[in-house]
């Protein structure tokens, strides 16, 4: 399968945008920048829009999802939009009961812990994706030459939520299942890979010019566990995009030990968290891989001259890689001053 000829990557809208060029290993005139979690809670216009709307309902209401996705592009002039959604959305679309509890995160009414629980999981009906298709299409139409990045949560992180029943400190229940019942684990991760893969595919088909697979909790795994119990499933998720020539970004928090293994599942670009500098990430990857990152979000509240020096250092170290897209080492926090983000974009663009 290939992209439709009116896809933004093929009809001339986004293929030559700085960020797509950087993702493909090029050095555009200005270094591109965007922020993970730029769409959402740090923006006053988002909080206003969300009033009275439940988080996941907002994700599945095309007008809202599209508007929230566009807000940071208008405000910060970032080089890409990231589709406003949540990693549990594919599970919800597959019929799994989940809600976002404010202050806590996604909570599942019935955690998935046994072979019988896993056997009850169903694939997503194609019609269920309608609000996603619509939101992406609307957004892409508004964005013009600014690419939209689609996204999904990677199988391990998604499965961890399902097994734990919600956010957890070290994913111990999930990792226990991985040891005690590896077959059930593999079945669950394949299901997660398939729904995450479908979710990415729908976004790409509707006009996303790149995708990012988030394995937020990968840092709780040893390299051996990752390679054996997780990587084949992440690969399966990316394989849903077979035939679609879109840059595939893979990001995990605490991924230093598994950076190379994460790349080998089929990623084109590696997102790096704040724990290792980009030149070190480049060395660990053996060179030649475009990188994304990795401003320490903890410095977003620091005096500007401190943050500025840090951003310049990130850009300097990013030169080790063939292409570099500036981003944070993790998502924007809810208390971040939006003006700081705007200033970072200006700095990055002006530095070139």
């Amino acid at each position, binding site marked *: *399968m290939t992209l439709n000829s009116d896809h933004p990557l093929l009809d001339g809208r986004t293929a030559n945008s700085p960020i797509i060029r950087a993702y493909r290993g090029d050095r555009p005139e200005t270094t591109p920048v965007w922020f993970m979690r730029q769409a959402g809670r740090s923006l006053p216009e988002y909080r206003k829009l969300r009033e009275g709307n439940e988080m996941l309902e907002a994700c599945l209401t095309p007008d809202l999802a599209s508007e929230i996705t566009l807000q940071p592009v208008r405000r910060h002039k970032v080089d890409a939009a990231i589709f406003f959604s949540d990693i549990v959305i594919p599970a919800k679309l597959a019929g799994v009961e989940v809600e976002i509890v404010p202050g806590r995160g996604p909570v599942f009414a019935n955690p998935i812990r046994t072979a019988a629980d896993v056997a009850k999981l169903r694939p997503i009906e194609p019609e269920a994706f309608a609000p996603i298709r619509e939101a992406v299409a609307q957004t892409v139409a508004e964005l013009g030459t600014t690419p939209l990045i689609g996204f999904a949560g990677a199988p391990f992180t998604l499965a961890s939520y399902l097994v734990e029943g919600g956010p957890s400190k070290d994913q111990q229940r999930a990792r226990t299942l991985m040891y005690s019942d*590896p*077959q059930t684990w*593999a079945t669950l991760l*394949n299901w997660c890979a398939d729904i995450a893969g479908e979710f990415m595919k729908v976004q790409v088909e509707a006009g996303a010019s790149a995708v990012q697979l988030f394995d937020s909790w990968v840092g709780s795994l040893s390299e051996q566990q990752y390679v054996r*119990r997780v990587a*084949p*499933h992440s690969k399966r998720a990316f394989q849903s995009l077979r035939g679609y020539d879109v840059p595939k970004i893979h990001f995990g928090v605490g991924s230093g030990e598994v950076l190379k293994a994460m790349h080998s599942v089929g990623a084109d670009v590696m997102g790096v968290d704040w724990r290792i500098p980009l030149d070190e990430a480049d060395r660990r990857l053996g060179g030649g891989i475009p990188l994304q990152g990795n401003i320490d979000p903890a410095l977003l509240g620091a005096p500007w001259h401190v943050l500025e020096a840090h951003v310049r250092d990130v850009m300097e170290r990013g030169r080790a890689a063939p292409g570099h897209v500036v981003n944070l080492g993790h998502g924007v926090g809810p208390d971040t001053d939006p003006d700081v983000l705007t200033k970072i974009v200006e700095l990055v663009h002006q530095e070139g």
Partner: protein
Amino acid sequence: MRVSTTEFTVIGGGIAGLVTARRLAMAGRTVRLIEASNHLGGTVASHLVGGINLDAGAESFATRNNTIADLARELGLGDDVVSPSAEGAWLQPVHGAALPLPNTGVLGIPATPLDGHTIAVLGLAGALRAQLDSLIPWLGHRTDISLGALVRRRMGKATLEKLVAPVVHGVYSLHPNDLPLERVAGLKERLALHGSLAAAARSMRDAMPAGTAVQGIRGGINRLITELAADLTTYGVIIDFERRIESAEALADLDGTVIVAAPGILAPVRGRTVTLATLVLDAPELDAEPRGSGVLVAPGCTAVSARALTHATAKWQWLKEYAEGRHIVRLSYNDEPDHLVEVARHDAEVLLGVSLPQESVADFARQQWIRPAPLAAAERTDGVIVVGETVGGTGLAGIVAHAYATVDRLLAPAADEAESEDARENGRHD
């Protein structure tokens, strides 16, 4: 949309079928596995005895070629591969008390016929006869000779019946007279090289990794199956449970290249019944491990009907930890004895040389297996690929190595083309 054409259909979810399906799937092929029962593993099974999950079939594997240890490592069990305790096994001769088994040779073939342990078992005359082996020139033998005939010719009847027969029986469940020489991997070659049976046995022993012929896995060999099943799921192998393929004719209806990994399809199952009795004992006298890792019984011994006894908690340190002071003893029988719990308790008493009153038996389990006989040449259907015990020999290491070789052939580019041509002719690739 996923492409769902099945390239390979594997019949049988025992160890051979599982490793075959796994290797094919990891090479990117689409594989369907058909299993007649509702679970995987075949004779590599487990059962709960005395609250402990124990192997119900194979409990160790041959270290030869490292095939199984490598597989365990690939499956993430590398840290749990364990060697049995250094305690040797004992021998229950036809008459008299059990004796420590000379542990310097392979398959009971004495490496140094005149050492004290060997003389104790064979008597001086028997040992001297065995020593003659070093003087008889090796002129080559007919290839269809049995191990028994060879040992008898070179080392005499005492060595054959008192040493080799009990050990071979413990490994192959066969009398050496029924064991073709070529099934003992490497022996013939080493015999030709060294000229004497004792020297060949010595060199085989030396070639074994870390000096131990077998290893196990902490938690049981059956953990391999759990991990293999997980890998099949990971790599997208479709598994049809409770689907029985009755005959060779039914193979034509299956998709892709068919690999038979179960007995009873190309020919009716013929084989020997082996019954295993597992005793969990509250018997502090066994703390001293009076018979090391176990006792092999010489054929013709009428004091017991068991063929071998394994003192599993003495053999495996991990099992001793799991058993928390209890003892686990496993006895094997060539037939299907009645009143097995009583027979096994009595045999354990005789073989271990301690009193085991009925109340010392905390739990008991009976497990019966049919060990399929090798497939005769006439039973092989042309073009049907077979793996497993009927063609791969006895023991996990041999079966898995044979399955790997079969997969390598199937995946080799030339074989690949020939295969798909075959399949086209048979109209099997839709």
